[in-house]
Structure formats: C-alpha cells, structure tokens
C-alpha cells in the first residue's frame, strides 16, 4: 500500500503461485484486449473500451476474493476482471461481436455488460455509478441472510462525482455492510482530467467523511492491490463494514474506440505512463524473483495468442442472435417471441 490511510490492517499478500497465475491472466487479458481493439479498427467490433493499464488493479483484486462466492459489480473497463473471473476469450469476444450465445446478455448489451448468475457477476448498465448503490443493496441482502459473501464494486474517478456514489457509500457505512468500493482512478473521465473532476487529488480522502477507511494504492502493482483487497474483504467479513480502495492506474488507450484522445491528452503523458506498464513490470519482477522463467513466459504468450486466435475464429463464425429472441425477457415468463403488449 502506497499511503495506508489508517484503520485498515495490512492484508495477506499473494503466494508465488498466485502471482504466477495473475501474470498469466494479465498477459491473456492484454492479448485479448489488443485483439478486440484491432477488430474494432477492422470494422468488426462496434465498440471497445480497453483495460490496458488497468490490469493489475482488476486481476489483483479479483484474485484476493473467492470466485463463485463473493460478488462482483464491475463496469465497462473491467475486461481483466472478466478474464480473472474465468470467462473464456471466446465468451468475452462473443460480446464484442454480439453473437448468439453470448453469456452475459445474449448480445443485447455492449460488450462485457449483462450478468452471470453463476459467477455472481453484474455489469448492468453503461450508466456511470449506478452500480454503486446496487452493490450496496446486494451486500445488504447477503448480510440480511447472514451469508459471508463480500461484494466488490468497481468504478472510475469520474463515477466518484455522481450523487449515487455518495448515497451508496453513506448507506454502506451506516449499516457496516460487507462492500469493497474499488475505484480505478486513471485521472480521466473520457477527456475530463481529475483537476476538473474534483478539487482534491484523491477519492479515498472522502472515505473518512462517511466513517469508513480509505486507502490509496498503486494500482499497477498486483501485490499491493491483492493485499489491500484481502484486508478490505477481511474487514467486511468480520462485520466491520466497507472500505474504499483507490487504485491509481493509467489508461493507455483513448476512452473507447470511438474516442480520439489526441484532442485532449498530451502524448508524453501516455508514454510516461507506459513506463509503468503493469504487465511488463510484473513479468520483470517475477523473472527477477525466479517465480517465472522465460520458457513459462513464452508458453503463456503462446497460449494466450492461441486462445485469442481460436476465439476470433470461433466467434467470427458464430451466428447472430435469433431475431425471435427479441421479445424474450421483458417480463418474467416472456419467451418464445410473443410481444408483451
């Protein structure tokens, strides 16, 4: 943790094998991310929001939680969280191409959006910050039933300005709900820099005003992320309530494939940021620490490439959703093509 803020105990760190697995996931995600961006440029994927630069924050936090048990409210930039949760490249890519059988929304929603019941994964909408009170309500439900699931909710620095963020955090603190607020602060909301988003330089500084701990961490360092998340989850499970983690990250690419960041972002800015590329940094560290060897690294690369290639082929060949599914699921019981009114 960069600036541990106070009453949050240090969490346990990742084991070597966990580190290795996180690196594998980050490399896989990066390969997938580059591919879908390319597919957008080829006119195949209508819209892409890239996670490049954010991977350590997402992978590190998911790794510190219990997949299939804890609960995940993510947002559009969380491709690496999806990969970490175990969605396959083909499943994810089928969202980018909105193909039949897409697991989250049946191709109805933007890529990565929808939900996955088995994974306790929700990415309901594109509307920034709506997930925050929803995640709080989700945690309330777990608490009411006496379950020990922790709900983590991801959001950006822009989202922190929305009223729903305030209302959700306040409620979670009052009821000491098992929530981890995970802010991926990349310094931009599309083109709006942090200095126009807030008069302070950290979202985590607001945590105290709600009565919960807030920590600022280096979001490019998986270990720091893992530790902070583990500590927050422990607090949550112990009934001590929510924690706000602010992971400082960088957005390498434009906001989405529709954006042109040269209109507002100094080039040097990104070059500078890329020096702290979380995937490269982790690779170097694991090599140095003897946790990763070149051979394994090459295998990871090759596997990632193959998985992404296979996914591309599979998904490009897949059919579009059947138009007759259009009227399904407006209300419970709506299936089979009948209009609801």
């Amino acid at each position: 943790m960069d600036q541990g803020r106070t009453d949050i105990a240090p969490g346990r760190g990742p084991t070597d094998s966990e580190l290795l697995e996180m690196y594998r996931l980050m490399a896989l995600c990066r390969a997938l991310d580059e591919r879908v961006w390319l597919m957008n440029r080829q006119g195949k994927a209508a819209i892409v929001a890239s996670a490049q630069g954010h991977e350590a924050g997402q992978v590190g936090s998911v790794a510190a939680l219990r997949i299939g048990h804890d609960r995940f409210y993510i947002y559009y930039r969380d491709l690496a969280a999806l990969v970490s949760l175990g969605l396959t490249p083909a499943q994810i890519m089928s969202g980018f191409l909105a193909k039949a059988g897409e697991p989250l929304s049946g191709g109805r929603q933007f890529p990565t959006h929808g939900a996955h019941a088995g994974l306790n994964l929700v990415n309901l909408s594109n509307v920034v910050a709506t997930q925050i009170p929803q995640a709080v309500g989700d945690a309330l439900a777990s608490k009411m039933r006496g379950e020990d699931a922790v709900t983590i909710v991801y959001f950006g620095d822009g989202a922190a300005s929305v009223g729903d963020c305030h209302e959700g955090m306040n409620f979670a603190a009052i009821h000491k709900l098992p929530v981890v607020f995970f802010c991926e602060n990349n310094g931009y909301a599309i083109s709006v820099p942090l200095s126009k988003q807030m008069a302070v330089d950290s979202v985590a500084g607001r945590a105290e005003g709600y009565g919960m701990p807030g920590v600022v961490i280096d979001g490019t360092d998986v270990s720091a992320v893992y530790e902070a998340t583990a500590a927050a989850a422990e607090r949550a499970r112990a009934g001590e309530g929510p924690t706000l983690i602010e992971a400082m990250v960088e957005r390498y690419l434009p906001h989405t494939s529709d954006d042109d960041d040269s209109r507002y972002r100094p080039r040097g800015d990104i070059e500078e940021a890329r020096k702290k590329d979380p995937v490269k940094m982790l690779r170097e560290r694991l090599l140095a620490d003897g946790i990763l060897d070149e051979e394994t690294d090459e295998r990871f690369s090759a596997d990632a490439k193959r998985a992404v290639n296979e996914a591309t082929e599979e998904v490009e060949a897949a059919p579009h959703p059947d138009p007759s599914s259009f009227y399904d699921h407006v209300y419970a019981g709506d299936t089979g093509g009948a209009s609801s009114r």
Partner: protein
Amino acid sequence: MSVIDAVREAMREEMARDERVFVMGEDIGARGGVFLATDGFVEQFGEERVIDTPLAESSIAGIALGAAMNGMRPIAEIEFADFIWPTFNQVVGEAARVRYGTAGSLGAPMVLRAPYGGGVRGGLYHSQSPEAYFAHTPGLKVVAPATPYDTKGLLKSAVRDEDPVIFLEHKRTYRLVRGDVPDEEYTLPIGAADVKMEGSDISVISYGLMLHLCLEAARELADEGVSVEALDLRTLRPLDSEAILATARKTGKALIVHEDTKAVGVGAEVAAIIAEEAFEYLDGPIMRVAGPEVPAMPFSPTLEAMFMPDTERIANAMRELARY
C-alpha cells in the same frame, strides 16, 4: 377497512409469509411511516427488516434493486410521489431493464410504493401524479388501485411479482375510502382492469381517486336515464386493452378521466388504443377529463380546486358524450 389499512395488512402478511420480503424507506421505523403504512412493523419484524433509510431516494431505489438482484424482495417506500424523480435513473434506467439486459439471468422483484395525488392541500410538492412516466416504461409494471379490496390483493401480487412494480396509492383515498376486505388471504392479478359498474350508453374509464368521482357522476347520470359503464383500470402497465376495447365496443362512447395532467398521459394511451382498434364501433369522440396543463397543484384552496377534476366536470362530460 380503509385503503391505508389494506396497504399495511398486505405488507404485514407478505412479510410474515416470506422471509425475503423487507421494507425500507424514510421514517418507516419508529415513526411507522408518515402515513402509518408500517405502523408497528419495527416492533413485529425488527430493525433488520424495517430499515429507516437516510434521506436519499436515488439510493433507496438503487439499494432495493441490488437487494432484489441478490435474492431479496424489497418494498421501498417513497415518502411522497413528489420525491420519486431522483429514483428515475435507478428505476426507469436500470430496474426496468434488468431482465431484458441480462437476457433473463437476473430479475428485479422489487416494489416501489408511493403515495400520490392531490386534493389534500399538498401544494406543488405533495400532490403530484407520476403514473404516466412509469406507464410509458416497458419492463415496469404500474399499479394504481382505488379500493381497499383491490389495494390489498394487488399489493400482495406486486410483492410476489418477479418484476419491478411501481405501486401508487392515492393519498386522498387512504382514510376516505373504506370497503370490505375478506378475512381469508387472496391476491388479484396485475394487468386486469375491473368493471366497477355495468352500463350500456357510455363508458367511463378511470383509476385511483377519480374512479370514485366517476361512480358518483355515473349515479347522477343514471337518475337522468343515462346508463354508464365504469371501468377501473387498476393497472396502468400493462394496460388491460381487452377490457378497454370491450367496454368501448359495447357502448361506442368513451370518456377517460384522470387527475394527472392530460397531454401524453395514461388517458391518451387509452384513447389511442380505442381509436386504433375500436374505431368502427365509435359513436362519438373519445373524450378526456384530466388535470389542467399547469406544472402542479397549487396550495391555495381556491387554486387547488381549479386543478382537481370534480364530479360536476365529469358529469358534464358524460352528458355531452351521451348526447352524441
């Protein structure tokens, strides 16, 4: 039993029946709700299931939605419908699309209750009728009952419904309207209108408080030899278009009455359905009596009276229609 008693008993029974049901909202705990809809609940069910929330409507809806997506069945109270606008993003934008946007993986079985309507000296901000906005929104259900019997049966169905229901209670009916409610448990189907008075000359289609004024006007007309059929919509989404068309076809003359302002209101849809699908049966224009096109109901009694449709205006419209 009064309407507010029906609300209370419906919730009490559903909470006793299903552990997943809980209530949340402002002042619903020790205070028992500003209209006493949850009087005694905190004593009976405890603070965990009767949650006094902070003053923050957007999150009341958002938190209810999150709890619903995670297996609970929240009933959230918006203290007055006038304060429901902050929930729009979480309700219209989010809850209404949960099932569709997840292709059925998740649902949002939540009820948002709100006392609405005027004639109570509530002024601009304690008199509003928000039904048209929600009735326009696919993915929601909108219920607006008029009697204790319908209120109890429909609220119980709303709580059991798998989809988000906006449950609108006309606050002037709370203590004013009384009626029999059976001791045995019952539910009523959402989406079914109800003929509250059979008739053959003209149809009046209404809901909520206005239904009672329509029935009063219809009784006046009966004395004048005009037979009025009164349809109570009860549910505003989905509208019971079969019942609407049946009565329109039967009498050939339709008057729609609501307190909410006229333009792009629920009455417009009822008129449009009839004009589209019962055109051949019509013997007169489709008429509407509705709130005037001013932003809200004023506080002054003289001005409030200008807003509220009354029995006289309704009876006059019936007479005009009967003359065709």
